[in-house]
């Protein structure tokens, strides 16, 4: 059973839960930026949580299947069609053999997730099927004409699932290890005014524009390990929130860390969107 990629949109990659335990070799963790949406897509088609899905950036994906299978599209809400007939968002849909699944463009949000029953079964690299876009460990990004193998289905599709409760409001911040590189009250300063998501944001990091954080120490921080959600502050004073493909080590001080449960929202913020922070 396989899927033919007919269109990819701006960027489509295969993602499973990522490559844990290899940061000391310089390998980014990867994995879906909106992990709860990817997990929901898997549950809807009866997959276990380790199955690989397709992460679609700004819609535009088209897949043709050579055998009937269940699919589900979650994350950023896009028009979903099977052979030009509309299908729902965040629910299992049957795609007959030879039919084409088509994702439109999201009106809001950035990243949508396509799960297929059985999971995308490209060959794992270092124990994961995730594509890391920093060092390109893992399968290459999807290209037109590529055929993706599909695994054997393990369970029946779920008729419905608990929708994700909306969590509006600011992203919660925990203290980071290098608050002492900044003026006192830096966490409060981050929370005082909104930031705006920058154009250059990607799977490596969400770049922010807004109030510059003032350093009280000069010089370079020797490289140290980085965590998911670390708020790194380069000499410009403009923070970057590290996301799934972040380098495992970095040389910019980290005064704060975004709560992991809030990180999925970074996956769905567009350049120009406003971001507020609050102490956790």
């Amino acid at each position, binding site marked *: 059973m396989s899927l033919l990629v007919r269109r990819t949109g701006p960027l489509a990659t295969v993602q499973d839960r990522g490559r*844990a335990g290899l*940061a000391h*070799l*310089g390998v980014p963790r990867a994995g879906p930026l909106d992990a709860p949406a990817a997990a929901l897509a898997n549950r809807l088609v009866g997959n276990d949580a380790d199955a690989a899905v397709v992460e679609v950036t700004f819609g535009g994906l088209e897949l043709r299947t050579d055998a009937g299978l269940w699919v589900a599209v979650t994350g950023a809400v896009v028009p979903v069609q099977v052979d030009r007939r509309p299908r729902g968002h965040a629910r299992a849909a049957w795609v007959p053999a030879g039919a084409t699944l088509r994702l439109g463009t999201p009106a809001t949000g950035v990243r949508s997730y396509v799960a297929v029953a059985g999971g995308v079964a490209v060959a794992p690299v*270092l124990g994961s099927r995730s594509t890391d876009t920093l060092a390109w460990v893992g399968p290459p990004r999807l290209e037109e004409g590529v055929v993706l193998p599909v695994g054997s289905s393990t369970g029946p599709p779920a008729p419905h699932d608990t929708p994700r409760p909306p969590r509006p409001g600011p992203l919660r911040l*925990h*203290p980071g290890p290098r608050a002492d590189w900044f003026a006192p009250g830096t966490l409060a300063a981050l929370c005082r005014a909104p930031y705006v998501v920058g154009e250059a944001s990607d799977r490596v990091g969400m770049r922010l524009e807004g109030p510059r954080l003032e350093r009280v120490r000069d010089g370079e921080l020797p490289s*140290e390990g980085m965590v998911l959600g670390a708020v790194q502050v380069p000499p410009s004073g403009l923070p970057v929130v590290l996301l799934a493909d972040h380098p495992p080590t970095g040389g910019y001080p980290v005064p704060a*860390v975004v709560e992991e449960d809030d990180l999925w929202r970074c996956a769905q913020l567009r350049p120009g969107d406003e971001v507020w922070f609050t102490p956790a």
Partner: protein
Amino acid sequence: MQLRAFGPRALLAEVADARAAVALGAWARAARLDVAEVVPAAGTVLFDGVRDAEALRVALAAWDGAAPAVQRAPVEVPVTYDGADLGFVAERWGTDVDGVVARHTATTFVSAFCGFAPGFAYLTGLDDALAVPRLDSPRARVPAGSVALAGAWCGVYPTASPGGWRILGRTSVALWDPARGEPALLAPGTPVRFVRA
């Protein structure tokens, strides 16, 4: 050792230097601490995916500063010394090209940590007095296998990439191969000797 909270699920241990970091990292791996990642770096070890920070603090207090006694023969990396920056390094070191090669091949390096790219190891062993500055503007493309210096670090580029390190030569050894059981040839803690190809 000072421990700093790095968000709710990670601890950063600050130690004296890169050698202490690689020792603590090796000790922590051998002790099978309950963490997802142990990431040594220039003067720190990051413990990420920590479920019980208090238990980890207690476990780390038992570290006596030593690395587990695993004596390994150094990995030998054959090098063709024809790099673009050999002359520059020779001048900085107050010697000639043969002097640079002699010094480089006489040093036993240790992989302190990996970063920058998968399998790119930061190798310690050179005297701080031999530190060399990086290029003011990085080269757009440094070929895979380039053996280079920056500060007192030595490194070998696993894949072609932009880079600002001073290039001494090149090796044909595969530094990084995801299909291997040990994908990084120079994982942290690995001793390394360079030899003339």
